[in-house]
């Protein structure tokens, strides 16, 4: 059924959030507030066995795009398909094929052991309890969590929790995996190991489609088959890191130029380049 379909296909995806009224805006309730445009006509195609890095500064729309693909947020216009299934119309069917590694590493049950946490989320993903436990042990050895499996989640360090979030995203062995800032709490050695796992195991050996959102330029450089540079809810450029290097640099510089000017105004005597 899904044999020829792209792993992920996004076309003209737009997401507008309603702005919340604040302070004096309540005095004119009849006046419509302009919506916040998080995504503006995003197109994206990711094939099986491909690793695409969504690169962009904070607020570029990376997380919103991942949330639309994973059905957590409904788009305002356009469509997103996972293995040929429209995520808006077939939410549970689409989610069956997606592993979403959330940036939020506290989203576990702190008084349950790591093994029990993975078992629970494995069952929610449709695995029988025994299969979920077996898979949890498998992922434990892949991600260096074996020793921690019997410990309460609450006793883990931030980096260990992040690895648990990665294990949870992989628990059902889905064909499409979305990573949202997955390495942000990992030490350099573990970040590098995770990148190797993603590249060598998930993409090259298991032919999975991976979308990896990050604002880390070095990570994008070493990881991506293809970089999709996002700015202001749009795809600003797409290609290999080497081809886009100049554009990437200017995108990040421009994004922070306002803050830089403000910093210089406030602290004129400080040397800002470290």
């Amino acid at each position, binding site marked *: 059924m899904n044999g020829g379909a792209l792993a992920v296909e996004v076309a003209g995806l737009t997401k507008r959030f309603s702005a919340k009224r604040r302070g004096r805006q309540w005095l004119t309730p009849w006046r419509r507030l302009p919506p916040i445009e998080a995504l503006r006509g995003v197109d994206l195609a990711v094939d099986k066995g491909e690793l695409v890095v969504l690169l962009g500064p904070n607020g570029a729309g990376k997380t919103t795009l991942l949330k639309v693909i994973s059905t957590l947020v409904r788009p305002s216009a356009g469509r997103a398909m996972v293995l040929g299934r429209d995520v808006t119309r077939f939410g*549970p069917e689409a989610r069956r094929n997606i592993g979403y590694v959330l940036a939020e590493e506290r989203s576990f*049950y702190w008084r349950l052991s790591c093994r029990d946490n993975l078992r629970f989320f494995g*069952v929610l*993903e449709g695995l029988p309890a025994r299969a979920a436990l077996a898979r949890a042990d498998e992922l434990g050895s892949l991600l260096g969590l074996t020793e921690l499996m019997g410990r309460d989640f609450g006793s883990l360090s931030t980096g260990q929790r992040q690895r648990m979030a990665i294990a949870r995203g992989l628990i*059902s062995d889905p064909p499409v995996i979305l990573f949202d800032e997955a390495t942000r709490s990992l030490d350099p050695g573990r970040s590098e190991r995770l990148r190797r796992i993603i590249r060598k195991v998930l993409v090259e050996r298991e032919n999975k489609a991976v979308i990896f959102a990050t604002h880390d330029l070095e990570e994008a450089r070493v990881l991506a088959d293809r970089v999709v540079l996002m700015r202001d809810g749009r795809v600003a450029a797409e290609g290999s890191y080497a081809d886009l290097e100049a554009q990437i640099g200017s995108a990040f510089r421009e994004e922070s130029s306002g803050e830089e000017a403000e910093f210089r105004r406030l602290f004129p005597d400080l040397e800002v380049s470290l």
Partner: protein
Amino acid sequence: MSRARSISWLELMWEFVRRDAKIQLSYRLQAFFQLAALFSICVTFFFLAHMLRGVESSIGTLERYGGSYFSFAIIGLAASSYIDSSLRSFSSSIRTAQMTGTFEAMLATRTRIGSLVAGSALYTLLYMAVRSGVLIAMAGLVFGVPLHLDRLPALAVIFGLTVTATLALGIFSAGFIVLFKQGDPLTAAISGLSWLLSGVLYPKEILPLWVQRVAEFLPATHTLEASRLILLRGAGLESLSGAVFGLAVFSVLGVPISLLWFAWAVNRARVAGSLAQY
């Protein structure tokens, strides 16, 4: 392809119960304190009833339920605390999951949101049923309340109808939490009115007639009356047709309406992007 396949709904629900039981058991002293609290309730009302012993026989409205204020109050507390906690269990389980971040993680799985909400509330529903049962058993065994245990099948029917009626209201209030995050007006209103009008601590017959008519629109009124008549007077279902009918109407009308409302609320939250916000 994904390793996921279909597991039964019961397997899924069991996993929720297992999760919540493990979390509760991790608070080791909690069970002891809760049992102590139940005993304390019994003792308090035992002495309150003792104080009223001289006037009990002159309270005509109490006669219908066996004439003892202690047994009247204990069954009222057991039933109303079950309904109260069950009502809150849906919205509070969503609220807690939103606050801890687990709601978004659960929503990202293939399990449908209806099952997530039902599963999250299930442990509380079971736990509160046991707790109410323990309270009544304690009243019978320790404080000598005469109970018609031969009528347990009739009680099970009333209990089942109470669960479905409460389910409807609980799902409705969960919709409020999904949309507005806090300030669920329904639970507060139903709970407050039930304590006031349904006859938890005093017979509803002492209220003005028009207020008693209003109380008919609360599931707790029917549950309380039926539970007391079954356990204290040995009434059968044939003499409780009013209560059975009232609870059945709540269930038949309430469950589909609440499911529609909940689905609408979830869709609105997905559009607003606020499903997992708190």
